């Protein structure tokens, strides 16, 4: 059974190899994945297309069985029906029935979550309010725009009041306002103790939301940890903004973010070790320092660097 101290997800040495075709050609997709996700975490699973993210999600949902290894979800074996009762899943694409209305879709999902009529009515009311779907309940799914479809799939995922929420590209196709609302919903769920696993390619959003990430590359987890810890070790740069009445040459190893020499304004990005020397030189040259801001490597740069490194190692 699930307990407070246990991780919500624990995967041990999970392998998955797909066999296809007449010649039974084998394609390994996951190779020894080890993963733990704690209660109330927002965890992001990152990786390039074909890295194995979707397969890993399907294993967690019990749609695919591991070839080797296993794990537990909400204290139960993978694929267990009682665990699935507390999982919400929002797929990347809105896999819905075009002929059904929004209400019929939510009623179906409530029924599949084994809710009685009264409970289903109450929950449908709650999630439609959260996802602002109230005015669209009678509309056929085929008439909804991409953004509204996304809201509907999120509402369907929230129906069972999940303890573990799996979101595949939850912010794709949403307008800026809907993205903000969705991020707020995710943060609110975390506060309530729900564990959220996000699979997304929109890295700035992941950076804004996730507590921890795992980087999946060719079926292996090549990096995992708290976002702040992972980015802590990355090379830092410092952004210096200044005004100088005389033209100044940019030193080696520094980069220009922007400059307007005619107005005497400059913003440079420089390595941390040259900051103090450069500031002294600039002050001697009569410059007025406007800002000195440390810049940490972003998740996008980290992702590109780590995946490229893994590719180099593999080749």
């Amino acid at each position: 059974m699930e307990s407070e101290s246990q991780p919500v997800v624990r995967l041990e040495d999970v392998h998955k190899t797909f066999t296809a075709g007449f010649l039974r050609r084998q394609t390994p997709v996951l190779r020894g994945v080890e993963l733990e996700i704690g209660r109330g975490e927002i965890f992001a699973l990152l990786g390039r297309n074909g890295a194995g993210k979707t397969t890993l999600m399907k294993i967690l949902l019990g749609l695919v069985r591991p070839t080797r290894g296993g794990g537990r979800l909400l204290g139960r074996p993978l694929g267990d029906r009682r665990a699935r009762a507390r999982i919400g899943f929002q797929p990347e694409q809105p896999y819905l029935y075009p002929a059904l209305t929004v209400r019929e879709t939510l009623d179906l999902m409530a029924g599949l979550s084994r809710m009685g009529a009264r409970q289903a009515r109450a929950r449908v009311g709650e999630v439609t309010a959260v996802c602002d779907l109230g005015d669209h309940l009678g509309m056929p799914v085929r008439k909804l725009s991409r953004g509204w479809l996304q809201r509907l799939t999120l509402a369907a995922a929230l129906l069972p009041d999940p303890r573990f929420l799996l979101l595949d590209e939850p912010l794709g196709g949403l307008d800026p306002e809907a993205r903000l609302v969705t991020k707020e919903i995710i943060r609110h769920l975390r506060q309530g103790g729900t564990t959220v696993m996000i699979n997304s390619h929109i890295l700035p959003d992941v950076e804004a939301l996730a507590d921890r990430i795992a980087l999946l590359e060719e079926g292996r987890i090549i990096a995992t940890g708290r976002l702040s810890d992972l980015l802590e070790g990355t090379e830092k740069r410092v952004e210096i903004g200044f005004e100088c009445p005389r033209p100044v040459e940019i030193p080696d190893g520094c980069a220009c973010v922007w400059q307007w020499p005619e107005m005497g304004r400059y913003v440079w990005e420089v390595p941390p070790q040259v900051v103090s020397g450069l500031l002294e030189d600039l002050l001697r040259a009569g410059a007025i320092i406007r800002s000195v801001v440390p810049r940490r490597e972003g998740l996008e740069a980290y992702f590109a660097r780590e995946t490229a490194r893994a590719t180099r190692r593999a080749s």
Partner: protein
Amino acid sequence: MVAVISLARHTFVDALRERAFLVLGLFAFVMLAASRLLNPLALGEARRVTLDLGLGCVALFGFLLIVLLGTRMVHKEIERKTILVLLAKPIHRAEFILGKYLGLIAILAVSLIGMVVALAGVLLLSGYAFDTNLIVAGYYAFLELAVVAALAMLLTAFTSPVLSTFFLLGLYVVGHLSTSLLDMASMLPNPGTVKLLTAVFHLVPRLDLFSYTLEVVHGLPIDAGQILLATAYTATYATGALLLALVVFRRREFS
């Protein structure tokens, strides 16, 4: 049971809104109405011709409905990837198969009721009295379609819609000729072939059990024992086919 009912209801509603279903339904009603137009050519056998044609039309429409909806039942879910959302819910795969089957059965039942009522209307308009045998004929047609629908569920659990249709058509034809198959086996000299044909006879559905046109046409008395036997056969055969469908379906992965 909540999950099964939800799935069945949704399958029913989804099928009702399929354009092909509406076109096929319209076609069936036009065919039923057209049987009345043949009355002047029937030379005093107008009632028989209307009943023959009408019940034939009911059977054909039902079968086409199964081909149209039943043989795509699981495949369509896989193709649209809605299966990922459905099976991620806390349902057993048996509930999925049963829910889909009951939804299909519900749409068949509603269609049959509509067509039998239409056929009775055509008969009344032609000046013939209502015959309770017509209800029994409708029930028999329903039992037959329930067996065929279960076979469609079995086939759709592991093959494409095209192959399912092909196999289902074959089983439908052989099922209607199953008694002839046994008669043919009894006349063959080779005991191996006899055993093979007898085995096939026991495996294919006995669809000839559900033929009730003669009784309706000639107004023969209703045999309750025969109805019970046909009902029991349907329940047994459909359960067997659905269990087999489950065995196949529960091993499937959706990558």
